[in-house]
C-alpha cells in the first residue's frame, strides 16, 4: 500500500513537472509584454527595462524555470527594495502584478474554493446517490422513469444556465435569498452558508445527475449478477438485497468518481465562481492568465493539477479499498 502510494506520488510529481514546464513554454511564446504590463502602459522604455531586470525576465526561459524549481525545493529570496523577503519552500514565486507570494495568494483562495466544493460535494453525493438508489429500487416503474428524465435533464444543463435560473427565481423574483456572495466562514457562518447556498445547489444539481446514473447503473449491474440470485434463492428480501448487496456494488465506483470530482473541482469550478462572483481559485486563475501573471498561473495550475493527480491516486486507492478484489499495482 505504501509502495503504491509512493509510486503514484512519484509519477504525479513527474506529471506536474511536465505540466509546469509546458506552461512556461506556452507563456513564453504568448503575446503581451509582461514587464510592460507589470509596469503599466505609460512606463517609459527605460522603466520597462528596469522592471524586466528586476523580475529577471531577461533570463532565458530555462533559467527562469530553474529558479522556479529551486524555489519549490529550497525557497527563494526576493528584493523588496529596502531589503529582501524570504519566500520559504515550497515557494511558488511572487506575482508579477501584485508582489504577493503566490503561496499566500493560493492559501487565501483555497478556503473560498474549498467552501464551494465541500458544500456542493455533500449536496451532489446525497442527492445523486439517493436518486440512484431510489431509481434502482423502483426500477421499471413510473418513479424510475421520472427520475431518469430528471437526471438526463440535469446532465444536459450547463451549470451557468441552472445558476442563472436559480438567481432569477430565488433572488430576483421570489427574493427569498440574498445575491450569492462569499463571506468567510470564520467571519459569519450563517452568511457563509446563505451566500453559498445557490452555488452549492447549482453544482449539486448538475453533478448529482452523474452520480445518480452511476449509482443506478452500478446497482442494476449488481442486481443482474449471480450472487444476487443466490440471495434471492435463499429468501433474502428485496430491501436487504438493494440496501446491502446492490448498493455495496456501487460504493467503489461512486467513491472513486467522488475523489476525482472533488480534486478536479478545485480548478474546475471556474464557471460557477465566475457566475456567482465567488473569488476563488478558478476566477483568480482566469484573471492571472489574462494579465500574463506567470507565477500565479503556474502556481495555481500546479496546485490544482496536484489536486487532480492526488485525487486520481486517492480514487484508485479508495477504489481498491472499497473493492478488495482489485490488486494495487
Amino acid at each position, binding site marked *: 500500500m505504501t509502495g503504491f502510494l509512493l509510486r503514484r506520488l512519484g509519477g504525479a510529481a513527474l506529471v506536474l513537472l511536465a505540466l509546469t514546464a509546458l506552461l512556461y513554454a506556452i507563456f513564453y511564446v504568448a503575446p503581451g509584454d509582461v514587464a510592460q504590463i*507589470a509596469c503599466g502602459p505609460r512606463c517609459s522604455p527605460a522603466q520597462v527595462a*528596469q522592471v524586466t531586470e528586476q523580475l529577471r525576465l531577461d533570463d532565458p526561459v530555462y533559467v527562469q524555470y530553474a529558479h522556479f524549481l529551486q524555489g519549490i525545493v529550497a525557497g527563494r529570496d526576493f528584493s523588496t*527594495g529596502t531589503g529582501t523577503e524570504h519566500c520559504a519552500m515550497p515557494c511558488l514565486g511572487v506575482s508579477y502584478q501584485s508582489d504577493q507570494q503566490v503561496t499566500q495568494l493560493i492559501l487565501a483562495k483555497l478556503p473560498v474554493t474549498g467552501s464551494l466544493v465541500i458544500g456542493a460535494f455533500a449536496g451532489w453525493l446525497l442527492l445523486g446517490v439517493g436518486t440512484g438508489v431510489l431509481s434502482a429500487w423502483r426500477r421499471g416503474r413510473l418513479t424510475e422513469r421520472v427520475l431518469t428524465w430528471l437526471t438526463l435533464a440535469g446532465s444536459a444543463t450547463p451549470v451557468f444556465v441552472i445558476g442563472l435560473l436559480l438567481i432569477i427565481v430565488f433572488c430576483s423574483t421570489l427574493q427569498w435569498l440574498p445575491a450569492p456572495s462569499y463571506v468567510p466562514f470564520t467571519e459569519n457562518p450563517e452568511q457563509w452558508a446563505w451566500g453559498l447556498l445557490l452555488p452549492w445547489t447549482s453544482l449539486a444539481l448538475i453533478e448529482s445527475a452523474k452520480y445518480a446514473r452511476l449509482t443506478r447503473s452500478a446497482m442494476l449491474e449488481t442486481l443482474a449478477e449471480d450472487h444476487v440470485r443466490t440471495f434471492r434463492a435463499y429468501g433474502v428480501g428485496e430491501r436487504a438485497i438493494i440496501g446491502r448487496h446492490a448498493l455495496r456494488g456501487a460504493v467503489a465506483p461512486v467513491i472513486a468518481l467522488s475523489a476525482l470530482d472533488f480534486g478536479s473541482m478545485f480548478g474546475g469550478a471556474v464557471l460557477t465562481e465566475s457566475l456567482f462572483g465567488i473569488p476563488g481559485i478558478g476566477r483568480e486563475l482566469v484573471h492571472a492568465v489574462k494579465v500574463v501573471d506567470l507565477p500565479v498561473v503556474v502556481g495555481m495550475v500546479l496546485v490544482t493539477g496536484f489536486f487532480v493527480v492526488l485525487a486520481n491516486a486517492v480514487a484508485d486507492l479508495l477504489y481498491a479499498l472499497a473493492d478488495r478484489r482489485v490488486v494495487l499495482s
Partner: protein
Amino acid sequence: MRQPSVISRRVAASTAVLVLAAGVAACGPEDSKGAAGTSGAEGKPQKGGTLTVLNSNPQQDFDPARLYTSGGGNVPSLVFRTLTTRNREDGAEGAKVVPDLATDLGTPSKDATVWTYTLKDGLKYEDGTAITSADIKYGIERSFAAELSGGAPYLRDWLIGGADYQGPYKDKKGLDSIEVPDEKTIVFHLNKPEGEFPFLATQTQTTPVPQAKDTGTKYEEHPVSSGPYKVVTNENDGERIVLERNPHWSAETDEERKAYPDRIDVRSGLDSAVINQRLSASQGADAAAVTTDTNLGPAELAKVGSDKKLAARVGTGHFGYTNYIAFNPKVKPFDDPKVRQAISYAVDRTSIVNAAGGSSLAEPATTFLPERDSFGHTPYDHFPAGKTGDAAKAKELLKEAGHADGLTITLTHSNDKDFETSPEIATAIQAALKKAGITVKLQGLESNDYSDTIHSAKKEPGFFLAHWGADWPSGGPFLAPIFDGRQIVEDGANFNTGFLNDPAVNKEIDEINKITDLKAAAARWGALDEKIGEQALTVPLFHPVYKRLYGEDVKNIVISDWTGVLDVSQVAVK
C-alpha cells in the same frame, strides 16, 4: 491595482455620480448645485457609523508610489494627503485644484520651471510624528524605483534628471532637482515650463513617506497615514481593508476631507452584478454602502430606471474621457486624409452610443476634448455625420480618393466587454461603414495583445478603437500625449498613435505649458483641439457617463467633474 491599461485603471478609480450640468439627461432626480450634502438620504450629515465600500477590484496597490489615480484617488485619499488636492465640490467646481498639505497651489518661477511649496503647520502622521518636506521628497523619489513602478510618467518627464534616476534603493544620493531647504519647504526644478504643476501635485506620489518606515514592496500592507483614517486591516492583498480614524489628523489643517464615518470597511473581489444587487437591496450594512469602482451596466440601468425609489439612489457623473477611432496614417489607405474624412462622415453615433449602453451612459462626441469647461472644450464638428452618419458624403469623398468601387479595411478592437473598445462598438462601426461602401473586417484582440499592439509604433494597426482619459481635468494631459510629436515613442508604449509631429502643434503645446493661469490655458487647449481636429487623425465617438447606486442611508453625495465619482471623503452615514 496594476491593471493592463492605464485607462481602465482610471475608470476604476473614477466613479461617480453627480448632479449634473445642464444639457445632460440625468437619470437620477437629485437636486443639483446646492451645497454639498443635499443629495442622498434626508437629514444633516453627522459624524459616526461605518461606511461600507463594495468593490469589484481589490486595492492591490496601496502604496502611494504605485497608485495611478486622478487627484489622489478615492479610498487612498482617505489615508494619503498630498501637496495639493482636488476641490471636493459637486460638478464643475470640483474640477479645480486646491491646496492640501501645502499652504497654497505653489509658487512658480517666472517661466514656470521652478515650483516652491510650503507645508502647513501641525501636520502629523498617524503615529504623531511631524510630516516634513523631506518625507515628501522621499515619497516622490521612491516612486522612481523599478520595484514600485506604476505611477504616472509626469514626474519622470518633468523633473531634471528624472529620466535617469532609479530611485532611492539603488541611488542613495537622491534626486537633486527636488530641494528641501528646510522642514517646511520643498522646491521642484523642472526641465521645461509646466504651468499645470499644481495638478500634478495632487497625485499620490507627493504623499509623505517616512523613510524609516519604508519597507519597499511591503509598505502597501500598512502605509503610514497622513489623512483622516489609518489602515487597521489589509487582508488578501487589498481584498478587505478596514480604516479607522487617525487620531493625529486634524480637521483644521484639512478643509477638504469631511470624514464623517468613524470606520470605513472596504470589501472587494465582488462581482459587479452582486455589488449592484446589494446596493439596490440596501439591506443591513449595505444601507450604508457605496461603491468606488462599479458602474451600473445598461441592463441594470434598464431595471433601475423602472423603479422610482431606486432611481433616486443613482448618482451620475462625468469624467474627462473620450472614446474614439484612431488612424495610423503610415498605413494605407489611411495616409489619405480623404479616406479618414470619409470614415468620419460615415460613422453612426446613435448605434455606437446604443452599443455603449445607451444615451444614459454615453454621449455622442465630435470633439476630442471632453465637454467640460476645465478642459477648455470648444465645440466643433468638422465632418458632420448627423445622428446616424452621412453615407452619401462619405461615398463622394471615397470617390475623390480613388475608391469609387468601395474599400475593404480592418478594424482592430479589444475583446474586453468594457463597452468602450469592445466588439459591439466595432460591429456598430462595421454596420455603418457598410452603408458607405466600406467593407470592414474585424480584428478582435485579447486585452494585453490589444494594448501591446495599438501602443507599439511598429505593430500599430491602421484603423482601431481607442480611448483616452484625463490625468487631471485640463487639456494638457489630454492632448499632449496623443498629439505632441516629441512624445512619439519608437521602442516602448506610444500614445501618439497618429504619429503627428507638427512643429506648429508642438510649439503651441510648449507655449500653453508656460501659462500658469489655468483658465487662460484652458481656452488655448480648446482652440488647439479644434485645429488638430481638422486633420481627421481621430474620429471622436462618445464620452461615457457614470451611473452608480449608493445605499439608502448614504448622505452628502458629492460628485466632481474631476473624478466623475462619488467622493468617499464627503459622504456620511448618520
